[in-house]
């Protein structure tokens, strides 16, 4: 047992990876079992993530070195360099890992009923597992190049999943093409920046790099290359155009996982600015860049959402808008990072709001995309103009939609309110105007979800939807779990903030905690 627990950082990844490679073999014998098999593997992975989270929160950051007993390699000259590939799981990494594990597990359960076509189904589950592996890797890795590899694994898997229906329809292929091009541009720019950092310091390990980084001209260039492309991968305006395309055309469970994948890029952005550069860089400039991305994303995302007619496209624009909240909260925290007084007064709170919002967003946006998928599953359309009166025949879906919509609009007592409150109050002390924009955006969010609710669920029962029924049980199960999580987070936000979010924020803010675990153990 202890050997499993000691190896848990890698088992979280390696088991889905093994399953992803086994599934084509299993699929040759029996096609029906692959879905249950992958859900099972992801459940095991979720259990390991929870165990690892308990360990990280209580004991401290965990280091896992590949293929050797220690992370360093002592050269004959006596120089000790952290050359090995390693996983470094701290509170922030495991926070994101929990999101990934939950979301991908629920996505697999939802897919059991949602993916009906038997041809190519084993490939679907393989890719879903590979996408999960890529996200976990991005969140756990302590090595820049390894991060690039996992970024590419995640984006290749997600493109294949977005274009999954491209055999029958043109639009998914188009969305996949666009996403592939932008994500390979971003990955190559990331690789270029990694090359710059490597050429300067001969190091790839994030902690070791953070220890020696000087913020020279080259480091500035590396930061300026990493910042916009990682913001792009997380869907920040004005580079958000791939988001509605990809989110609306992917199958619904995949869209939910894609939201988490974009948040993994967001995590990488935070990791770069906090753990790698921290106060060495000009945090005010970097912070304001992130704040401007955030404000633009919030406002343009929500105003574009109001005029949409496609339900998943509308929700995708909301995903852009909600990403803005996270960027705003964390950007304010970053802008005051080198000012200890302001950091203590409102910076930490603002960071807590931004980080907490990541988890909340993954939950309620996942739920909303799943309800949109349920509507598509039964009605066969995503066009809001053609829907109506579905509350008569899909009662559970209606309830779940109301919960998700209330949470995204920031209505108490759901979880969206808790994190938005943290953001409003702390950002108000930094700059009142930003806080007011955030509140206006919240109102517009509510307005546009009222539109969806009215046009899809309310109204008389339409004749063309007479034989519409409630969705199958596996879909209801995953939506119900997400709703329970949302209500729990909404009722007890202090528990989550105290036990999960605050350690994550401190892991980001205190650079020494990150570098010390690697360099101290050498």
């Amino acid at each position, binding site marked *: 047992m202890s050997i499993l627990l000691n190896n848990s950082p890698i088992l979280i990844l390696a088991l889905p990876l093994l399953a992803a490679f086994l599934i084509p073999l299993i699929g040759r014998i029996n096609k029906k079992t692959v879905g249950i098999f992958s859900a099972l593997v992801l459940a095991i992975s979720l259990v390991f993530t929870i165990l690892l989270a308990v360990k990280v929160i209580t004991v401290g950051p965990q280091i896992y070195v590949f293929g050797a007993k220690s992370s360093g390699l002592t050269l004959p000259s006596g120089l000790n360099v952290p050359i090995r590939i390693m996983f470094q799981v701290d509170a922030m990494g495991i926070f994101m890992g929990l999101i990934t594990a939950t979301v991908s597990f629920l996505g697999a359960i939802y897919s059991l009923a949602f993916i009906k076509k038997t041809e190519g189904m084993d490939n679907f589950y393989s890719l879903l597992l590979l996408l999960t592996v890529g996200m976990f890797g991005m969140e756990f890795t302590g090595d820049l190049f390894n991060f690039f590899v996992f970024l590419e694994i995640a984006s290749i898997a997600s493109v294949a999943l977005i274009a999954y229906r491209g055999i029958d329809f043109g639009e998914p292929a188009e969305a996949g093409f666009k996403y592939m*091009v*932008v994500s390979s*541009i*971003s990955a190559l*720019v990331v690789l270029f920046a990694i090359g710059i950092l490597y050429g300067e310091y001969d190091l790839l390990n994030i902690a070791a790099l953070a220890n020696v980084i000087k913020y020279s*001209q080259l480091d*500035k*260039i590396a*930061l*300026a*290359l990493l*910042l*916009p*492309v990682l913001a*792009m991968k997380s869907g920040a305006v*004005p*580079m958000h*155009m*791939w988001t*509605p*395309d990809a989110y609306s055309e992917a199958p619904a469970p995949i869209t939910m996982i894609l939201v988490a994948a974009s948040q993994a890029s967001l995590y990488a952005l935070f990791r770069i600015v906090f753990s790698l550069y921290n106060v060495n860089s000009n945090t005010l*400039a*970097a912070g304001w*860049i992130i704040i401007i991305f955030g404000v633009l994303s919030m406002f*343009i995302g929500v*105003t*574009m959402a*109001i*005029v949409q*007619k496609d339900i998943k496209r509308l929700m995708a624009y909301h995903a852009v808008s909600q990403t803005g909240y996270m960027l705003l909260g964390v950007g304010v925290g970053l802008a005051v990072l080198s000012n200890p007084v302001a950091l203590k*007064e*409102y910076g930490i*709170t603002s960071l807590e709001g931004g980080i907490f919002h990541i988890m909340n967003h993954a939950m309620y946006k996942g739920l909303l995309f799943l309800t949109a998928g349920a509507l598509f599953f039964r009605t066969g359309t995503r066009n*809001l*103009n053609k*829907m*109506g009166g579905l509350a008569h025949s899909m009662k559970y879906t209606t309830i779940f939609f109301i919960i998700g919509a209330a949470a995204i609009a920031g209505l*108490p*007592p759901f979880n969206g309110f*808790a994190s938005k*409150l*943290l953001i409003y*109050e*702390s950002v108000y*002390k930094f700059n009142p105007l930003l806080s007011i924009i955030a509140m206006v955006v919240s109102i517009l969010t509510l307005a*546009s979800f009222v*539109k*969806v609710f*009215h*046009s*899809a669920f309310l*109204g*008389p029962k339409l*004749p063309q939807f007479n034989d519409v029924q409630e969705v199958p049980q596996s879909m209801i199960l995953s939506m119900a779990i997400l709703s329970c999580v949302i209500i729990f987070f909404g*009722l*007890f*936000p*202090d*528990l989550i*903030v105290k036990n999960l979010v605050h350690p994550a924020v401190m892991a980001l803010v205190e650079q020494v905690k990150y570098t010390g675990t690697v360099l101290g153990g050498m």
Partner: protein
Amino acid sequence: MFGLLETGSGSWSAIIWVITVLVIGVLVIYVRNKGEDSYKKNTEQDKPFISGNPEASKESSHLSASHIYWGFTEALKGYYKPLVEMHTGSINDYSCWIITVTVIVLIVIGVS
């Protein structure tokens, strides 16, 4: 029990909020029940009054999505027209935006 979430300038507890809402709701229902009770089910009180015009069929009364917030988008036409046109859907523009923003960030970070 009532875990307070510190927000820096105050605190928030969803449990207290829920209890308050329940208490107020009970009060409202109590006050409402004390009022005049002349409503009778299944009489002509149930029917909508449209100045004597015949009632339209229920199916035709559904308001579809593009009619909602028509006034809002019409009033903000000057804002929406360029914004919607910005989303051309052409992959060339997507890469243009990425390159442009990267260059701007390069300049800002390089100067600061």
